[in-house]
């Protein structure tokens, strides 16, 4: 059975840029451990002779010519879902110290 520590959960939270309240940590330890245990069932399968699958389509070399494509919309219409726009740029929390 998978055993995820408090340290592991905090690390995952940091990588995912998610802030956790102290009382949430134990909830997640429990939840993620249950997910891992479920996935662990895969270990029961004998995969000794199976080649790792990276692709399932069997395709190779799907490429396009180097031309600029007009997609038929104003690029800035992509901003519709952006919470804050300033000077045609996406405004985010400051990334470096003031």
């Amino acid at each position: 059975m998978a055993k995820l520590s408090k340290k592991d959960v905090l690390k995952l939270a940091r990588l995912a840029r998610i802030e956790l309240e102290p009382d949430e940590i134990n909830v997640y330890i429990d939840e993620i451990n249950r997910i891992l245990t479920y996935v662990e069932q895969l270990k029961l399968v004998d995969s000794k002779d199976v080649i790792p699958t990276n692709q399932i389509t069997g395709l190779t070399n799907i490429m396009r010519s180097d031309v600029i494509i007009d997609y038929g919309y104003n690029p800035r219409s992509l901003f519709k879902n952006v919470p804050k726009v300033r000077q045609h740029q996406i405004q985010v929390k400051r990334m470096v110290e003031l």
Partner: protein
Amino acid sequence: MPTIGIETHVQLKTKSKLFSGAGNDARGAEPNTLINHVDFGLPGALPVLNQEAIKLACKVAMALKTKPRLFSTFDRKHYFYPDLPMGYQITQYDQPIIIGGQVEFELDSKPKRVGITRAHLEADAGKSTHPAGKDYSLVDLNRAGTPLIEIVSEPDMHSSAEAKAYAYELYLLMCYASVTDGDLYHGNMRFDVNVSVSNNDILGVRSETKNLNSFRAVEKAVDYEIKRQIELIKRGQPIIQETRGWNEAKQITTSLRFKENADDYRYMPDPDLPPIVIDENYVNKVAETLPKLPDFWRSKLFKLGLSKMQIAVLLDANIDFSDCGYLDLIADFANSNLDVKSLTNWLINVDIPLNRESKTQPNIIRFSLYESVIRLIESGKLNSTSAKELVARLLSSEKLPSNIERFAKTSGLLQTNDTDEIETLVDQVIKANPKAVKDVLGGEDKAVGYLIGQVMASSHGQANPEVARTLIMHKLEP
């Protein structure tokens, strides 16, 4: 001893982005105009690989003296940052398009070889700016999805001078292979330097200073890191493996965010991008389109009698002023059995400096220009002062005159070999300068030069100074 390895990001000069049809030249473009659903990371958008990027990667392999790998794949490298809309970067992890290779150059007349570990294709991130005094940052995604090739060197360098020379040689290689615009000011090439110091055979803990965009910054950042780490060791403090940034104003490196380990990136094969399989035939076809590389030109120009210094200046200027085709011009001159050394002097002393001051027109046919000018000098019709003036005028004209000799004549730049005419001037000058004449008679050679100068001045630079000298010496013979 310090040990240095360098990772270089080279922006490839494709017309469109690596995985979408958005325009790729972000220089001068308004923010967020070169974007679409793929680069914006919208759910369901399908990236499709730009075939030109594979072709350019093959050329990179050849410039690095190796061959592209016939099988390569794309992977996702996950991290969260505001300039990375997808939440992962598409890159090549365990099957990159290039493994191995080398960069060779000369430093202080000694050959140096730096091994290449690998080079892989990946998509660039967006660009963020941090307005002064504000509590926010702004993100422009024009650059997101620009094709990059990241070239990872072996830790084969041991001084800042070697690091700088490697970075410069790589710049020459990438520009001559014609895979990048090589515009460092606009970030077309960015260097990350890994530096560690150690007083034994075991490598020390390294720091990585990211995003250096000039050769000088590479040199200075390496110098600073070596000094900083030696200081830490002396004081008995540990060196932390970390990412640092270069502060150009203060000329120091500073600590950036804590570096995530490779397993934190959760690399996985990108299911949207099938593997790339190329064959020898394809590679050979690409090789046929590879332009001449720096070493070809070095050896060719050296055989033509140019010095290493002259060759270095020409190799550099040929990139900055690619429209002028300096190297091809020299090759054409040599093929026509014209005076290559004179041409080289003209290019290095006059043409390139004028170009750096933007005092030349782009469409001037230099072959005809220099062929005519050098012929006029050789035939004694043009002296060096007037020749310089003539070349400057021709280079700044919209179009070369059909007859350069006639143009020089009507511009009053040809020198006169008419002995009678010059003799009249010599007589006037001798009369007007009794002191100098006395000095000449007294055996002072310098005074002859002065008198010739006076003749040149009164002829408005058109007298042949050799004729003037002969006449003066003749007249002042004791």
